[in-house]
């Protein structure tokens, strides 16, 4: 049992990010904000890594800058704006809604809506094609049944 506990502890301890321990914070709030920001800001050099994860020189420079800005008392939006100002929207993992990015939100919805409309229209067309059962049809059917029974 003890060995099992030990192994569990060892396995889960790898999740601790050692790289962040070198930073000194004045408050838990600052530390939280710094963590959030470095996870959300994207490294312009090692693309698809956030700046907390990347070892690129520019990622370290951005981390240092985030730390400086956080310590100066800037809030999250201010730090993000500071970075976007320099590196463009690319640097933030949550791009803003602009006319272009709006397309990404609307297109999938449009596909679903168009799909339903198509289904609806086709069903309606099929219904219209089935014309109602007239007296004449009834008579014809009865005749056919009679014919069939007689022939037997």
């Amino acid at each position, binding site marked *: 049992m003890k060995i099992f506990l030990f192994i569990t502890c060892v396995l889960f301890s790898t999740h601790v990010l050692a790289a962040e321990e*070198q930073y000194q914070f004045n408050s838990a709030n600052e530390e939280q904000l710094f963590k959030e920001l470095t996870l959300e800001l994207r490294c*312009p*050099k090692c*693309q698809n890594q956030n700046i907390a994860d990347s070892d*690129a*020189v*520019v990622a*370290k*420079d*951005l981390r*240092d*800058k985030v730390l400086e800005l956080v310590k100066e008392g800037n809030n999250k939006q201010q730090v993000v704006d500071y970075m*976007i*100002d*320099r*590196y*463009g*929207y*690319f*640097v933030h993992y949550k791009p803003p809604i602009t006319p272009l990015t709006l397309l990404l939100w609307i297109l999938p919805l449009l596909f679903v809506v*168009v799909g339903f409309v*198509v289904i609806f*229209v086709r069903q309606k067309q099929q219904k219209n094609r089935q014309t109602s059962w007239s007296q004449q049809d009834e008579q014809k059917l009865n005749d056919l049944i009679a014919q069939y029974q007689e022939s037997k």
Partner: protein
Amino acid sequence: MNKKVLLALPLVLFLITFVFLFKGLFGNPKEIESGRIGQQIPAFSLPDLMDEKRIWNEQSLLGEAYLINVWGTWCPTCLIELPYLTKLREQGVKIVGLYYEQGYDPDFGDTFSLPALQQEVSQMLARTGDPYQFNILDLERKLALDLGVSGAPETFLIDKHGKIVLHHTGDINERVWRAKFAARLLELQ
């Protein structure tokens, strides 16, 4: 009529997707537009690489369109573009170097020796040709960060009023120069 529109819909959707994906084939994900395009060059005050008593700032560069080329002796791609940049200088293009020191980080106890760097730079430029009017030493990469630089080489085109007109990531060669820079620089001159 309605049926025709409905039948054309898949084709239209296909074409939109096709154009979107086709364009993606030729995109370069490393090419990130700096957020600074169209803005004034940020304020700075940094020493000359070869003469640290000489301080350059954003004012000292006004009056003429020029290129800022971010480079370093550690950067192999810079080594490749230096001869071409030298050729551009001979054609009358004003190029200012922004020396991007990669190795130096005081947090890791790195020491920095300016004379050693100066010697290294002189040796390298003697070999490849020197395209620079002068070099600005950005030891802490502050101006680089303000410009939205992610590495080297990168090049900015600045107009005579100090406005950032163009940004290019990667080396400058004949093809890039003709496609991206030549016409814009001509407009500005």
